[in-house]
């Protein structure tokens, strides 16, 4: 069916691109002109909806909230995940298999299963409506998959490198920090992209744990101001675009890492 190739691949390109382009275009229309012509550019396009949005919604604060949660979670996930991976590599056979097994089972349990008891526990610990609570939960839920990605890679490292370091009298920490971790950078990059995109875009945990507006992350803020603006699409789309910019910019510059990382996560998950 080779003759279908060109029509199919370009038709699908349109399916992906047209909605995105129309959304960008609509964010520069007013609601009235959007009703006149939802599809094509009209006269008098302006940045009005961006002004409305930024004057009424503290978007920058939500951006900083998301950034803080994502960056701190990522540091924890990568550091702790690679330490566990290193331990799995170095532990005697039986304990190593047990640790690996626990995280393998952890990967199978979907977020939605734990959300109720997790929420109740957080309430008891006084961690509801705190960013630290959100960070710890995101970390706990993404550790298993990152242990899989990083641990799977570390197993392929040459044992001789570690042995040589051992002869030089290096302790476990130095062997981890100076050898195992730097050599695992490709896997760490994949894990970081995978976890980063998930935490940045996550809705469920912030929805459960964040209760006051000023601590909203971007997806949560988007959802709540869409209630406020109902079907005022230009304003909502201005929000969607502003919220997506950081990821889009990163994606444009780091495509290869994004595609590799997101796929690694899918294959292991």
């Amino acid at each position: 069916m080779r003759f279908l190739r060109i029509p199919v691949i370009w038709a699908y390109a349109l399916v992906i691109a047209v909605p995105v382009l129309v959304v960008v275009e609509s964010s520069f229309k007013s609601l009235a002109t959007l009703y006149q012509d939802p599809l094509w550019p009209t006269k008098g396009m302006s940045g009005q909806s961006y002004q409305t949005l930024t004057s009424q919604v503290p978007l920058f604060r939500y951006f900083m909230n998301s950034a803080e949660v994502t960056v701190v979670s990522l540091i924890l996930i990568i550091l702790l995940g690679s330490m566990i991976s290193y331990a799995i590599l170095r532990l005697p056979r039986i304990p190593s298999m047990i640790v690996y097994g626990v995280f393998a089972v952890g990967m199978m349990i979907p977020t939605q299963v734990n959300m109720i008891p997790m929420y109740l526990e957080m309430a008891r610990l006084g961690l509801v409506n705190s960013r630290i609570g959100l960070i710890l939960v995101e970390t706990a839920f993404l550790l298993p998959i990152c242990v899989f990605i990083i641990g799977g890679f570390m197993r392929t490292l040459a044992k001789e490198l570690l042995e040589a370091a051992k002869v030089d009298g290096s302790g476990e920490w130095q062997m981890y920090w100076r050898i195992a971790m730097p050599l695992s950078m490709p896997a760490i990059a994949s894990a970081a992209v995978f976890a980063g995109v998930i935490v940045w875009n996550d809705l469920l945990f912030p929805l459960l744990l964040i209760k006051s507006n000023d601590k909203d992350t971007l997806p949560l803020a988007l959802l709540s101001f869409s209630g406020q603006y109902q079907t005022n699409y230009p304003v909502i789309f201005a929000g969607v675009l502003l919220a997506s910019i950081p990821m889009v910019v990163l994606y444009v510059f780091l495509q290869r890492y994004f595609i590799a990382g997101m796929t690694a996560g899918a294959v292991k998950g």
Partner: protein
Amino acid sequence: MRAKPSIYLFLLPGGLIFLIFFVVPTIYGLSLSFTNWDGLSPQLQFIGFANYAHLLTDDSSFHTAIGNTLKFVLTVVIIQSTLSLILAIYLLKNTKVNIFLRTLYFFPTILSSVSVAFIWMFIYDSNIGILNTLLGDVGLQSLQASWLGDQRMAIYCIAATEIWAHTGQLLIIYLAGLQQIPHELYEVAMLEGASRWQTFRKVTWPLLAPATTIVVAYTTIQSFRMFDLIFAMTDGGPGNSTEVLATYIYHQAFQYNHVGYASAVSMLFMVIIALITMAQFGLLRFRSLKSA
């Protein structure tokens, strides 16, 4: 080379966080599923398997949620796996155009589900939506619909959105599988005079089995646990026509305060996911044994 006992310290910080925020809630959830707790009152009663019995026998809204989940999962899995395979085959060669198209197809994967939800709510909007406008422009007014407002169609509309959002990601998995097939096999097939379809049936398809298993299992699990898109687009409505397992658990627990009951649903949910995952591993092993 023996590790020093200090190696156990490496497990400590991550292990503690995992224990407190993941393992403990899971066990806690299991015990809650045997109670009738409302999440608020100080006392709770253990009621044995009553929640499970009620779920399986006479909770019609749970059965609706199961039905909706199956509709959603089947639609997404069948269309998404087929589409991503076709597109992966079409974009196999590393030409500039193909790399550009792969990057474009992949793009929605990096958007948050909330953003994707808004884009598609606009597409489906019954007054000014792109879909109805386009249908009107080409003279197909008869096909215009209220999409997300239609009880029969809404779940499939959200399935289409999910397919749009993640086909590009699965394409990459297929691509990796396709690129591992030795080129010589295709040359042999060509020399033997095999048709394209025969080559696909006898060479590509069997050798692609591991990738197919991963794609199908991943899509199945992802669509089984779908929450964000549905929560943002319809929140289970209209009626309960888009209520799926994940939103059902959320609504039972946080809207109706049926904490014990929702925990029982969660546990069934976990069993379903575990069965799918084990089936995946079993299938992968079976196939690799067969081909060995």
